[in-house]
């Protein structure tokens, strides 16, 4: 347990982890306050990408601790909202976070934000545990994440994600709540069709980007 990380000594270790992926980190600088909280300016999509990359490349525990600190409470809250009780949610959340470590090398930053990737892992685990079946997933693409993603693609995708998140936050509250309820599993698919008004406008350019990427990669 000697290498166990405490939350208040991340700064140097993460800076060191960042050294392995300088392109992703770019000019952004890590600043950790004395109590270990990550300041809001650091919580950008590219920051989380750098953390996952550091786990994949260097098994970097400091980066994992940062991801954990940010996402674990949200994953747990998501599971509780989805119907898990406190202890099941804690158990399932730990499992999800451990999966992030194990699958870090499969994460492709040109295809999804880290939050989305974690959401899909949490959703699948939730179905495993609450509905008791292994959720069928689409097969992988013929090219794997082993192929280093193009940095321009990564930037474009992650920026698009930030735009999408901003657009969702600007939706009328009623519609936003319905979207949340849909993702907590409170709506059936016909209720989704009838009630959320399918927020297609917000994801339109995200979809276009994904299509371009797929077509580009096939050529």
């Amino acid at each position: 347990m000697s290498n166990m990380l405490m939350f208040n000594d991340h700064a140097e270790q993460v800076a060191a982890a960042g050294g392995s992926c300088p392109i992703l980190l770019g000019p952004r600088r890590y600043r950790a306050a004395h109590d270990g909280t990550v300041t809001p300016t650091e919580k950008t999509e590219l920051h989380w990408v750098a953390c996952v990359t550091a786990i994949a490349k260097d098994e970097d525990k400091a980066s994992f601790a940062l991801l954990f600190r940010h996402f674990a409470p949200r994953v747990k809250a998501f599971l509780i909202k989805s119907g898990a009780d406190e202890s099941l949610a804690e158990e399932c959340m730990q499992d999800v976070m451990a999966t992030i470590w194990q699958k870090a090398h499969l994460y492709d930053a040109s295809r999804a934000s880290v939050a989305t990737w974690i959401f899909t892992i949490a959703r699948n685990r939730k179905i495993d545990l609450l509905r008791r079946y292994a959720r069928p997933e689409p097969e992988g693409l013929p090219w794997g994440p082993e192929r280093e993603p193009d940095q321009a693609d990564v930037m474009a995708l992650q920026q698009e994600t930030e735009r999408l998140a901003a657009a969702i936050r600007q939706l009328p509250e009623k519609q936003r709540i319905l979207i949340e309820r849909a993702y907590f599993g409170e709506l059936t698919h016909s209720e989704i069709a009838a009630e959320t008004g399918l927020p297609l406008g917000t994801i339109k350019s995200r979809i276009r980007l994904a299509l371009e990427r797929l077509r580009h990669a096939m050529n």
Partner: protein
Amino acid sequence: MNGIKHHISDDLLMGYAAGALPQAFDLVVATHVSLSDDARARLAGFEELGGVVLSDMEEADLAEDSLEQTLARIAGTPVREKRVEPSRGIFPEPLRKIVGGDEDAVKWRSLGTGAKQCVLQTEDGVSARLLYIPAGQAMPEHGHRGMELTLVLKGAYRDETDRFGRGDVEFADEDMDHTPIAEAGEDCICIVATDQRLRFKGLLPRIAQPFIGI
């Protein structure tokens, strides 16, 4: 891939992204997404919505030693998960996984007219099955009590609405009666998810219905 003309609807994709579909429909959607760039891109959009929902969650309290426990889990499982290679047969990976192989691994049951089926899973009146229709033959005519989602895996069929080839999906509900006929030249294999048992109109199939479970 290219050539898909009949795409899956946004409500089914969002339902799949949200984890709100019955198991049998999850299987058909995952299989379709494996074959369609369009569906894959749209699914990515709907999953991104889930990412935003997750990001905007209020934080729950964690167990005191939550991170340590998680690190202990990681230490206990050092093996990294391998990527699943795409399937080279006619069944995409999610279907292949359930069947235990490709077309030749299916345990077909005859429907009496040359057509065959294999029920893959059933839960609460929602089921997924593979259907095999010999070239030129019709599926027994049926109406729908609930919703039905069909994905063509091999060959093609036509019904009153259009032609459906590999990768195409067709969604039908109570209001629709259709008679799919496999195109001449190649036998047709589809995967079909139904949310209630279909009712057949022909005499023979009606007698057979209780036994074959359609």
